[in-house]
């Protein structure tokens, strides 16, 4: 690939700003456009000849085809009446328009816009022809480019019927248990000493997807361009190298270079030297005979020189089919989650999941933003709200929410009954003439056997209320301990919930006790300060 960088046509780029021309195309500019085409050809971005009906393009990562040809008869029956431009001329206009989009947009977006324009030319006026608002903007932009009067453009635009876009909505994730099961199977697979090399290599992209992108909020397109080698050891530390795109966020002023080294920035993150790193290194070692630019060995059947997203999603699907579907080990998991069967998931699901993972570990909002490579916090916030439904499917989150709600209620009640307001009474707080506590006659108790609060015969004293609050607190503690017990039961290293308490005490001994000591010291100092009062009278 040529190292020269082409600027978009009509863009005057200065150091700190760009002026983007909105001038329509004029025939005198033809040579300029041809020159631009030549430049992209030299760079290796456009692989076809100018007169071709479709240009085969390469972005340094993937191949795209920008198609210009369209049905002449359909055009003459539809948009021709409106534009009164001959077919050949329109095709030429589309090519010029496409060239004006180069370096401004990525290739897939250019191909999509041109496709929308072609669709407009052959379908305008059809009863069922509908466009999204974004598509409408693209068509307006094309019509302006070819020199139609703004008023005429507005007229045409106003006659286009709208349809709500599918895209732009929130990504619907599968139930959390799908991802948990994939992670579990990947663990089992790569911990299996009998795993053969071919399977090791085959399923490695899924391993990387799970172990890295479920934690680092990488975009799917960023994952597939992970550099080779991606693990670097330096000064006794281990670093993971990842590519992050620089075209996202405020991309309007940015120039697309169609070069992976310039459209992405290389980041190095310090990572723990653990099993994940060793698996990645082993994979690199096993596949070193295949020279390539990116981490994933794309094999011989790939058209592009990398594992495409489509290819990865197919692999993921195969993984789900092979390891999850019809695996009776997960029947109970599915039962717990209330799902009939596992879903097929896709590469892009990992980013919102990793954002949720960070969010639910109380990582500061700005650190989430930085790791997600977002320009502003609001975009990151969008992710948190997006995955809420999926994460709520997590039983521990819903359990915790329930406990928190109970704890909050209890603290409100406690506050309300902090100071005794009622006169102590030696009488039974149950005013039922049947005196159920003494006689065991529960006819007045209705259906509220376990809880007397709210009963018309029940007039609790302060002590009753306090007892009840204590009882509820004890119950809440017991509910909380259930989680600790469950963890102890599952833990590979501790046997009882007491052992977990001990772990906390050990951790607590270090910094937390130090903090406590500091707090005590500060408190003493404060008392001293109070004694001397805030201001000491100067001496004379």
């Amino acid at each position, binding site marked *: 690939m040529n190292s020269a960088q082409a600027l978009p046509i009509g863009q005057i780029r200065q150091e700190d700003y760009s002026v983007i*021309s909105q001038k329509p195309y004029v025939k005198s500019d033809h040579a300029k456009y041809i020159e631009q085409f030549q430049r992209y050809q030299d760079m290796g971005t456009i692989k076809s000849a100018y007169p071709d009906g479709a240009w085969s393009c390469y972005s340094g990562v993937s191949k795209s085809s920008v198609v210009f040809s369209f049905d002449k008869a359909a055009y003459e029956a539809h948009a021709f009446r409106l534009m009164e431009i001959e077919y050949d001329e329109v095709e030429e206009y589309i090519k010029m328009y496409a060239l004006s989009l180069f370096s401004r947009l990525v290739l897939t977006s250019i191909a999509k816009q041109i496709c929308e324009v072609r669709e407009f030319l052959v379908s305008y006026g059809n009863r069922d022809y509908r466009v999204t608002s974004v598509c409408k903007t693209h068509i307006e932009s094309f019509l302006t480019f070819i020199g139609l009067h703004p008023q005429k453009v507005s007229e045409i635009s106003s006659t286009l019927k709208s349809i709500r876009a599918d895209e732009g909505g929130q990504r619907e994730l599968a139930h959390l248990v799908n991802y948990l099961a994939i992670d579990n199977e990947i663990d089992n697979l790569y911990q299996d000493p009998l795993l053969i090399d071919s399977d090791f290599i085959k399923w490695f992209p899924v391993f990387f997807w799970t172990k890295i992108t479920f934690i680092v909020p990488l975009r799917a397109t960023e994952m597939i361009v992970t550099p080779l080698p991606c693990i670097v050891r330096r000064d006794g530390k281990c670093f993971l190298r990842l590519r992050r795109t620089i075209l996202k966020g405020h991309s309007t002023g940015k120039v697309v270079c169609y070069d992976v080294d310039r459209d992405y920035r290389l980041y190095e993150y310090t990572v723990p030297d653990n099993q994940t790193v060793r698996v990645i290194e082993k994979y690199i070692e096993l596949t070193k005979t295949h020279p390539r630019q990116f981490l994933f060995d794309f094999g011989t059947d790939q058209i592009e020189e990398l594992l495409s997203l489509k290819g990865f999603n197919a692999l993921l699907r195969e993984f789900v089919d092979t390891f999850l579907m019809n695996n009776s080990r997960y029947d109970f998991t599915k039962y717990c989650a209330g799902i009939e069967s596992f879903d097929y998931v896709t590469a892009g699901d990992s980013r919102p999941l990793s954002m949720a993972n960070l969010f639910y570990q109380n990582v500061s909002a700005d650190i989430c933003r930085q790791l997600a490579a977002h320009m502003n916090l609001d975009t990151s916030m969008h992710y948190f709200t997006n995955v809420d439904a999926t994460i709520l499917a997590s039983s521990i989150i819903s359990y915790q929410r329930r406990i928190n709600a109970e704890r909050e209620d209890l603290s409100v009640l406690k506050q309300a009954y902090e100071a005794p307001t009622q006169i102590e009474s030696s009488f039974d707080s149950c005013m039922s003439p049947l005196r159920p506590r003494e006689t065991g006659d529960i006819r007045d108790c209705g259906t509220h056997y376990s809880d007397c609060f709210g009963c018309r015969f029940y007039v609790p004293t302060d002590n009753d209320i306090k007892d009840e609050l204590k009882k509820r607190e004890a119950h809440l503690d017991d509910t909380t301990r259930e989680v*600790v017990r469950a963890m102890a039961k599952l833990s590979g290293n501790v046997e009882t919930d007491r052992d977990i308490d001990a772990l906390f005490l050990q951790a607590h001994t270090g910094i937390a006790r130090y903090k406590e000591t500091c707090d005590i010291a500060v408190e003493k100092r404060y008392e001293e300060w109070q004694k001397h009062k805030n201001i000491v009278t100067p001496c004379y």
Partner: protein
Amino acid sequence: MMFYIAEAAKQVGLTAGRIKDLIANGVITAVDGKIPDETINRMMDERREFISLLEYAVSHSNERFVGQAVKDRRALVDVLEDNGFFGLQTLDWTDLITGVQRDELFFRRADIQELDSRLAIFFRDYGLSPKEIVHRNMSMTAGREHTKKILFAFMEQESAERPLTPAFAEFAVEVLQAPDISEMLDQDVVDLLGRVSTKSAKQIAAQYLTFAKNSERSRPVGYGSIIFHKPESQSHPAVTAYSDDVYLGLARCVFNSDYISEHNLVEKALNNHLYAEMWLYIALHYVCGWRADDICNAWQYLRLYERPSPVADIRIDTLADDVLHGRISDEVLARVCEYCVSVLAASERLPSKTAAYDPLPLEAVITPALRPFFGLLTLVAECHRLKSEDGYMVSTRRPSYQNKVNLGDFFGREIVDVLQGENLHSRRLNKTYLQGIEDKARQTGCGGVLASAVASYARNHRDLGSIRTYLQDHTWHGENAETVLFFMLDRGVFGFEIYQALLTGYPDLMSKLSLAEQNKIIKALDVKPIYLEQQISCVSAANEIQRTFTSGDSATLQVMLDSMFAISQGRGQSKDAGVGCLRRACGLICEIPTCESCIENACPHTVFTEHGYKSLLAVLKDYLNKAYSGDKKAEAILRTVLIPRFQYEINQLFKRNKVDLQVRTGLKKMLSESLERRNAAS
């Protein structure tokens, strides 16, 4: 030939005093009070050839530009320096024998015409407000009627929102030199933006061009859109928060009672209004996250100079003495502070920068311990205000409050050492304060986003996004994106499952631990998220069964028991493949493979026995215990309600699922054993 000083001065065109100064400084020599004619000739040549900046400035004085004033000359030098002295030759005052320090530099007289033409606009517009400059330039510009019309409308719109800045004047002057807006092309836009020097002037120009484009849609303009390239997000901002050491060191100088008495700060503050204002200004940075301007303008005083004291026990006539000798009690001082804070709250004063966006008023949180301190500083301010116009903080004096020399003079050498010889930076103090707030919020149980929102609230930001620059370089918990990522990777995939479980189990403790300590525990536990997920859903189901059984919600209970029973009744070979086996779900093999049926043998790893049936028994056991302790009501409930209900539910389950005899026997045994054990324990 020799000349007396007076004669020489007359010839050269300088004052006699200046000639004497030159002799005294050894620049020229005099013999017997006379100066040689060669020296005089040299001086005359210099005077003929060169003109000093001072002389030039004085000769161009007008009603606003005063050449003798240092301030005005500085402005002139700034313009000259910005423009590289227009490429003209200059000489330093030390290069000429006639030069003195006030001359600063010299130009060739031959260049005066060039300088005049280059500086004509400067002398003409100097001292005018931006609006006056624009109006003057508009009236002096011929043609460009469309531009003038649009510019006027744009200026009206801008000035209605905020005061016009010098950048606006700079932009306006240039836009009036550019082609008329109706004829402007892309290259003209580039030329225009190239001519304005400051970034803000460029941005105003871009806003103006967009305004022009939108204001007359029927007459399309010939230029495209302007996009400013946003710098990429920086991982480390240029202005960082103060480190803990600096922040605490400053706090010691400002708040510490020993330090205050050692350095006689109260007395010094009473003697100098600037010190009093400076002290209050810095102290307020520790109780609010406001911008410096808001600190100066929003803090409320007692205003004793115009009314009696709103706080009792303050004598205006002896106030300074009372403050100096500590005769005002802490209670009164605290009341002064409380009064100021209450007035601030009641005034609902909005932050100057975001008032248009955010209706939340400014708020300072002063803890009881600090109230006497702020009360005292307020009274010191009042002492000054009673004597003069000064004493209350003024935003224009901000640089003085932050100046290292002033700080050193007042607080002593220590503060200069703490600041490492730098001036105080208000924004850095704000940053540290806001990071502390965020950290505190997280320690008290707020999640990451909520904690950021709390910090954002303290700064009155209009949206959460703005707080990021303040929290980016967190100095309190030492977390940054890289360290957090390291710990997250160390915790493993779906670390949030185990983290949240620990947070549930140890709500007061887990959130107080550092990331490293949390990781230590998580790693020591070694729990697989998927198994935890299963286990917790079982615990939830068990709780739900108890609730439905106690409340008598038979329909729900039956559904739950049925489905648990259905997935748990493994038998023979299918036992090991049973979906209700909690061991198998964790990838483990059966512990009691010789037993034929799971339920019949009351296996503790089967969902039905462990979480369904056992939960029902737990309710019975609970009431049984109460009954044994003498609670007649509990006994009656157990006898008349729960046992019949239990029998009914279990019989229904047996009927619906056609449970065989062995299983029934197994469950009966479990029931009797379970209750008996409890009886024995009781």
